[in-house]
């Protein structure tokens, strides 16, 4: 008999444990959900912050979901859960450019508005592009151009080899350098992958410095990579290497400035991106979004011009990349 009681206890334990979860899913206000790329990325947490602020303004409940691993499979599982919960809109930073299409289509068929932000995927009704792929690539190439003084060796330290955003920017940078003779004597020595992990990014950065003694600039189109690279340069000041790329001001506060490792860097306000994502969902649900080429005014009374995107058909640009220099870095460090 004692064993039976033990068994019932085990079951109750599980039920009790789970019941203490934070609240049921069926509150009356409509729910907008946001899905990040993975669970531990400060850029993503700022984007979620923006998304939540916008949701409060619109008067809907915001719901943040992050997958266990940075993979498309986990994101698909989350989308299915959200559809089952009957959320009204989903904003997703896709881990794969194609894999989510069928699942998103199943959601949109059910009238759920699905937008992508930060990194795009097929099937999305609208890509909230923080800054055009070409614009980002252009600013990165120009920074390298400026920091090398027009010619010299430079390398790229990217996130993981499967990161859709970074790969798109790298392709665009290659195209820009090939088309314009101005960049002819820039020598792109190598592209290495830090997998968005401090240790691997540091190792790859150190290897670059050893393999290419007269390397002048390392361009890091990822917030994790740029911080690791800046730290390596700061730790051996006489290496004479400059860091360019995209970084969070709060992270890079000690490393950005004229005499510092990273003269200047670019990024955009992830909070704006999150914010804009929420309003896009509202706009789609209200049927305001027309075809490519037209424009509309969202509830945050800013007008957006719809341009053709790839792989999502429609995309809007939140704004040009923002430049952080020694002067304005401290001011923005508090914001994000």
């Amino acid at each position, binding site marked *: 008999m004692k064993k039976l009681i033990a068994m019932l206890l085990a079951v109750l334990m599980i039920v009790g444990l789970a019941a203490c979860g934070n609240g049921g899913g069926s509150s009356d206000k409509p729910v907008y959900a946001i899905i990040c790329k*993975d*669970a*531990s990325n*400060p850029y993503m*947490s700022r984007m979620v912050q923006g998304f939540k602020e916008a949701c409060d303004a619109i008067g809907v409940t915001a719901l943040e979901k*992050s997958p266990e691993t940075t993979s498309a499979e986990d994101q698909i599982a989350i989308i299915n859960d959200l559809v089952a919960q009957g959320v009204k809109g989903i904003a997703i930073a896709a881990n794969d450019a194609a894999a989510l299409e069928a699942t998103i289509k199943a959601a949109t068929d059910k009238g759920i508005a699905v937008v992508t932000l930060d990194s795009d995927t097929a099937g999305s009704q609208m890509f909230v592009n923080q800054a055009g792929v070409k614009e980002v690539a252009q600013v990165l190439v120009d920074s390298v151009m400026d920091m090398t003084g027009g010619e010299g060796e430079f390398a790229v330290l990217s996130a993981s*080899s499967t990161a859709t955003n970074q790969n798109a920017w790298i392709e665009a940078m290659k195209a820009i350098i090939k088309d314009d003779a101005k960049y002819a004597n820039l020598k792109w020595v190598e592209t*290495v*992958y830090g997998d968005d*992990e*401090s*240790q691997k990014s*540091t*190792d*790859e950065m*150190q*290897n670059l*410095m*050893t*393999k290419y003694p007269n390397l002048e600039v390392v361009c890091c189109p990822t917030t994790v990579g740029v*911080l*690791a690279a800046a*730290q390596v340069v700061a*730790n*051996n000041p006489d290496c004479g290497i400059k860091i360019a790329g995209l970084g969070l001001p*709060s*992270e890079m*506060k*000690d490393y950005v400035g004229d005499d510092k490792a990273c003269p200047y860097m670019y990024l955009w306000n992830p909070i704006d991106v999150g914010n804009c994502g929420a309003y896009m969902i509202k706009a789609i649900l209200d049927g305001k979004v027309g075809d490519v080429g037209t424009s509309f005014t969202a509830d945050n009374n800013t007008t957006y011009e719809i341009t053709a995107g790839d792989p999502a058909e429609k995309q809007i640009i939140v704004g040009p990349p923002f430049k952080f220099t020694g002067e304005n870095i401290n001011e923005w460090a508090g914001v994000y």
Partner: protein
Amino acid sequence: MIQTKSKSLGKFSGLLRSRESSLLLVMILLVLVIQWRSGGAFLTKTVITQLTQNYAYTMVLSFGMLLVLLIGGIDISIGATLALSGMSTSLLMADGIITNPLLAFLFSIVVGSICGSVIGVTISKGKVIPIIATLGLQYIFRGLTYLVSGTKWVPSDKMLAGYKSFAQGSFLGLNNLFWIVIIMFVAMFVFLKWTNFGRQIYEVGSNPEAAKISGIRIDRVKIAVYTINGAIAGLAGAMYTSMYATAQGNMANGAEMDVIAACVIGGVSLDGGQGSAFGVLLGATTIAIISKSLSLVGIDAFWQQALKGGIIAVAVLINVIVQRNAARRALEGREI
């Protein structure tokens, strides 16, 4: 009767001695090949210091794993223990509760040893198979790391200056972290060779039944070994966070695989009773050299993973072939 050839080799006896000297030979050969292939870029002061600094924490972890393997156990949760102890220490530093670096190191070690003792009790008193106990606890510790940090990072500017500078500092030309490795190696060598408890670990691993009859309390030895292993993982957590000056949720993900490989290459047998501190030091250094030099030698990023797996497999096969020959030679030695 067989006459053992120990007399000619001086104090140390046969087989164990020869495996470590052959491993040293392989390592030296490896360094020479890398030096030649990388055009002399490997054996420079900067690369060696980087190598000793970046891989100090895996070397330290390998000594902890040596103890666990010696008693015939296994621990695949050391990556998660490292992350939990490193993250909790960094969080307390960010909130200003821990103000001096030494206290931070001690706190991290304490958290690690708590995790280790939980594993020890589950395996010894709970009679759970080591691979399954550490698999389950790996999920729990990794989940706690994210839970404790609320999936956010601890940025570098929130870390104590003294804590970060410790990792960069050096003493008598050697990096501080590498000093920890040296001290750990000496301590482990003395502990395993000259202390009573050290010998008991070999006894429990070599012949558990005989050890039990002769009055050694097996459960106590197991709990002690796993607790020490946890404490070492805690120390490695502090070393990792001070070295990379940030604390991420996914740090040291998969570190346990490299550490097990280092021990196996270092001649430690997975069934217990066989292995030495010197062998593990060589094994860990070999793994560090391989990981560090792959990109230096111009093997492109995409071959690295495949090559690393191949090298582990080859090292394991060589170990078995050496053992088989020794057994066959012993058989042929018997006069019939």
